[in-house]
């Protein structure tokens, strides 16, 4: 927008005003973030890793973090890359990927997703209210990530600490995700 002196419109999160949780589980909306959906052939993975400043993991169900960016393995040639900090215009991840000069497909999905941070001793139990994955630390250690099912929606799950997860969800499903997590959080405290 040209410099008109007026304020930019502010974006309201789809999670704004929602609250829930229990004595065992804390639920909170994650701050705004940059995100790209990234597809890269094996021969170009190192070029994209260099350009993004984070090594794209090639082992299933793993993630890597560096320089304020986290790359989540979703499939053999597919990653979700999350960058800290929201933005007004532009996406530094898109720009970095473009700067790689290597063949890839990147789509800005910063506003397609929102994230819910789930933490506390009952965090895994709350997520397991709707997710069939084994969330024991052995099967799903810190740093593990996966696209999976949560009730009737799809999510991307990342374990950020022994008792903390990030749930990435499409924004139009966020109300449902938060509601089911709140139910799970309540059950986890029983």
């Amino acid at each position, binding site marked *: 927008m040209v410099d008109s002196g007026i304020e930019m419109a502010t974006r309201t999160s789809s999670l704004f005003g929602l609250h829930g949780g229990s004595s065992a589980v804390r639920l909170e909306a994650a701050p705004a973030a940059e995100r790209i959906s990234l597809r890269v052939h094996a021969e170009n993975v190192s070029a994209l890793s260099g350009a993004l400043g984070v090594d794209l993991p090639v082992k*299933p*169900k793993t993630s890597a973090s560096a320089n304020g960016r986290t790359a989540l393995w*979703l*499939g*053999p040639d*597919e990653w979700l890359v999350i960058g800290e900090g929201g933005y007004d215009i532009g996406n530094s991840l898109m720009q970095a990927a473009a700067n790689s000069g290597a063949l890839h497909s990147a789509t800005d999905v910063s506003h397609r997703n929102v994230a819910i941070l789930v933490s506390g001793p009952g965090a895994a139990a709350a997520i397991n209210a709707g997710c*069939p*994955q084994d969330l024991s630390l052995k099967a799903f250690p810190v740093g593990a990530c*996966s*696209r*999976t*099912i949560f009730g009737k929606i*799809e999510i991307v799950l990342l374990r950020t600490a022994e008792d903390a997860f990030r749930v990435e969800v499409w924004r139009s499903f966020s109300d449902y995700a938060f509601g089911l997590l709140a139910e799970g959080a309540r059950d986890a405290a029983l």
Partner: protein
Amino acid sequence: MLLIHCPYCEEDRSELEFRWAGEAHIARPENIAAISDEEFAEFFFLRNNEKGLTYERWRHIHGCGRFFNAARDTVSDRFLMTYKAGMPKQPIPVMEKAVAIAEEKTVETWEATEGDAR
């Protein structure tokens, strides 16, 4: 709940993450515009619908997103093996085991299979 081994994720995952995608190893005709209607119908519509050992495509749609192939027993619903898309039809590793599975007299009641499922 069935667990299905994804050859890309390299682990067993819940059936809820997967979707069936029809019979496997059906090659698309080389020159599809040249074939007759009957040949097209054969390729496009007609399936073997085997009772017992069958080869199917599955997709880990709510996981890694990849298509893969599976050998499955349609009587018992057991997955005998899975392997990556693009690989030729794989022999069942232990034939005796497959036969034993095929001949097994399973009593399939909801109470027996799903009664304690959450």
